[in-house]
């Protein structure tokens, strides 16, 4: 009887440890994306050059939509990675930076300091951020040439991640 109880306690403890191990690997602040596999929302943005910029302008091209802000510290390192990738994939992928809860002047200063070789835009009333279900920055959405959201990435992107996501999209896009 005593051994039976010990065994039960042991089993319950193992179950508890397994559940805790599973739970602690999850990030409690991450917001799951419901957009993956769905058509990307069509945002009407305002470019930092004050010209309207719609995502439909890039129809037929794969898109990397990066929500960022000049006050976001991880965005600084990520910016360098995106800059290099924008050059590497220039012929097939359009990179667009969307300002999140930031003012254009601060963004301009950031871009002057760290460089700019792809389009950046402001998001009036955060409408695009809401449509993409953004919860913070940096967040990046990968859209294929058919306008479907392939992946959402929360946190700064790495060169490896960009290659991992973009290379298969580009292979599929080849005629």
């Amino acid at each position, binding site marked *: 009887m005593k051994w039976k109880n010990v065994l039960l306690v042991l089993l319950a403890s193992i179950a508890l440890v397994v559940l805790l191990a599973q739970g602690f690997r999850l990030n409690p602040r991450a917001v799951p994306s419901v957009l993956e596999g769905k058509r990307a929302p069509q945002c009407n943005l305002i470019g930092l050059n004050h010209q309207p910029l719609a995502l439909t302008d890039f129809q037929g091209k794969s898109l990397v939509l990066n929500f960022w802000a000049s006050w976001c510290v991880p965005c600084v390192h990520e910016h360098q990675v995106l800059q290099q990738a924008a050059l590497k994939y220039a012929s097939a992928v359009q990179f667009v930076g969307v300002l999140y809860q930031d003012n254009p002047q601060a963004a301009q200063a950031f871009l002057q300091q760290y460089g700019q070789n792809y389009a950046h835009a402001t998001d009036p009333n955060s409408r695009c*951020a809401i449509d993409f279900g953004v*919860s913070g920055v*940096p967040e990046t959405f990968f859209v294929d040439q058919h306008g479907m959201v392939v992946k959402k990435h929360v946190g700064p992107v790495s060169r490896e991640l960009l290659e991992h996501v973009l290379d298969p999209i580009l292979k599929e896009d080849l005629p």
Partner: protein
Amino acid sequence: MSVTLFVGCCLSVSLVVGTSLATDTIPNKQSSIQQKSSKHQASNNETNVQSTKILTRTTNAQDANLQKKALRIGKVLRCPVCQGMPIADSPADMAQAMMKQVFVLLEQGKSEEEIFAFFVNRYGEWVLLAPKPRGSNLLLWIMPVLVLLLGGLAIFAYVVRSKKAPEIRG
């Protein structure tokens, strides 16, 4: 003693299962890193003013009903930045932008259900502070009652047993 231990373990496991299910319904990946400069923090402090502006807009339009509706909806929608707070109470810029969107949708004549659907389509059911009691969400509603019942039964069984024990000895 071992019975108490066993009951304790059962309760803990049930609680963890409940929590893990809740986590499944809420978040599951790495979160956004939100490190703001002091400048942005200052702008956050001004959000209450923005909120008042939104409210004043409707008050000026003498549409108290719209304002009431928007606040009621805002109390049910989760702020994606603060997460534990409804957008109606959150000072975060994003929550204020969402609140503004609620007003826009109400002004367009959308119903409460349509507005909830608008946000659920973008953020998933996660955005609702009270997940609808259906599918695996049902467990979230049933689990606390189940744990309470099991715990009560276990305590009852323990008390009955410990009362019986001296009689056997005697």
